[in-house]
């Protein structure tokens, strides 16, 4: 197997950056949504739940296209953002991060929600009798106890983000150095007559990254669960 070329490195680093940013930015929103869905009943809750899971069932290209319509340079919100705040998502790595974040969101929210639902509310009650205001209960009791779920969600989300293709290529296309992530690079390479070797290298690297993420999360989750059981 020959050396990894500079173009391939660019795709790898870009994928990592996009997936990490997507996951980090999505996580607070994921925790908030999970909390809302786990703890409250309100009018429109099923609609919200469905909306959160939409990227899971819509064809990825459709999600990408909807992002383009809304946030493209000439999109509903995108035009305003570009003209007034100079923020552009389409065809930028930030757009790739956004597409990956949106696609991985349902996978992020689910484990967190389950984790929060499993928390013994009586512990939260005990905390409030000890003087903890609601946000402090959340920060010192709920969040730490939900940690295994949060980590599991983040890893699933990261894995999805790193492998995302359809929405990404539709929203931000395939510009080397800017939006050509690993999956798009592989897609281009397998269409090129002599691209098979490079494609194979990238495939192996994808597998390595995904495996590392899974192993890392297992370790984290196991430690967090041990703490949960008071060990």
């Amino acid at each position, binding site marked *: 197997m020959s050396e990894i070329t500079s173009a391939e490195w*660019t795709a790898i*680093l*870009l994928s*990592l*950056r996009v997936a*990490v*940013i997507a*996951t*980090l930015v999505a*996580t607070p929103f994921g925790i908030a949504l999970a909390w809302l869905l786990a703890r409250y009943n309100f009018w429109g809750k099923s609609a919200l739940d469905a909306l959160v899971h939409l990227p899971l069932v819509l064809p990825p290209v459709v999600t990408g296209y909807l992002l*383009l319509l809304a946030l*493209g*340079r*000439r999109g509903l919100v995108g035009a305003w953002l*570009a003209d007034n705040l100079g923020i*552009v998502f*389409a*065809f*930028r790595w930030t757009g790739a991060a956004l597409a990956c974040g949106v696609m991985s969101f349902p996978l992020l929210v689910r484990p967190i929600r389950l984790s929060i639902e499993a928390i013994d509310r009586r512990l939260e009650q005990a905390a409030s009798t000890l003087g903890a205001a609601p946000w402090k209960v959340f*920060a*010192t009791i709920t*969040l*730490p106890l939900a*940690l295994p779920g*949060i980590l599991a969600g983040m890893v699933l989300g990261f894995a999805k983000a790193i492998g995302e293709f359809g929405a990404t290529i539709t929203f931000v*296309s*395939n*510009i*080397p*150095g*800017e939006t*050509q992530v690993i999956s798009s690079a592989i897609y*281009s390479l*397998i*269409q*090129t*007559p002599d691209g098979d070797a490079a494609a194979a290298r990238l495939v192996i690297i994808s597998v390595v990254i995904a495996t590392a993420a899974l192993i890392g999360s297992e370790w984290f989750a196991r430690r967090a669960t041990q703490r949960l059981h008071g060990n």
Partner: protein
Amino acid sequence: MNRLAGIFVALFALAGATLPAAAQEKIITVFAAASVKNALDDIDAAYTAKTGVKITVSYGPSSGLAKQIEQGAPADVFISADTDWMDYAISKKNINESSRLNLLGNTVVLIAPKDSKVENVNIAPGFDLAKLAGDGKIATGDVKSVPIGKYAKAALEKLGSWQAAEPKFAMADNVRAALTLVARSEAALGIVYSTDARIEPGVKVVGTFPADSHPAIIYPFAATITAKAETADYLAFLRSTAAKNIFEKYGFKFLLSPTT
């Protein structure tokens, strides 16, 4: 809680570290028809060696590229494989019209996998493409939008072979994807440019479409209206003798006289 925050900060830092230092480098972004890939790569390498300016190219079907530019993609240069898509981009007010150069020409050929039994096809009115393909598929770009597909369909319609052959077509994303299908023997035949056939040892040319069977193949080159200042120099280089030699080496016709 602090642990979680710590992990977050570390990951953000990691992400930031992967940011390319390219902010300081000059980069010109080119959106180019897939068929110019090998030639343009060589020319770009020469240009970077000469000026230090890096060229990033997004290769794809001219149709897809034109639509992305319309949507605000950050291209400095657009190289289309037909005039339709350049005209489209101009109509959407994305192109600096005065910079337009109808620079290259090409030929459409019929190809087959290297070890195919098909040989020496005479492409003339009445030639039976469908029969030639047998049970196999005919690969080319999407006939509705991709330039090579449009040329192919126009030619076949003129020759009277389109209707019978249409059900056997495998429409690929762009011409190089079609080329790869034939090289892998996934398709029995393919319709690509002669310049593509030349760089792929896995295929052989079995016939050439007469130039009058389809609209003239013209590759317009132009700068976009958002092009960086450095683009003018790059476009001038594409019209230089050095560039001409490289394009012709790969089999393109150079339609203009070089300016340097």
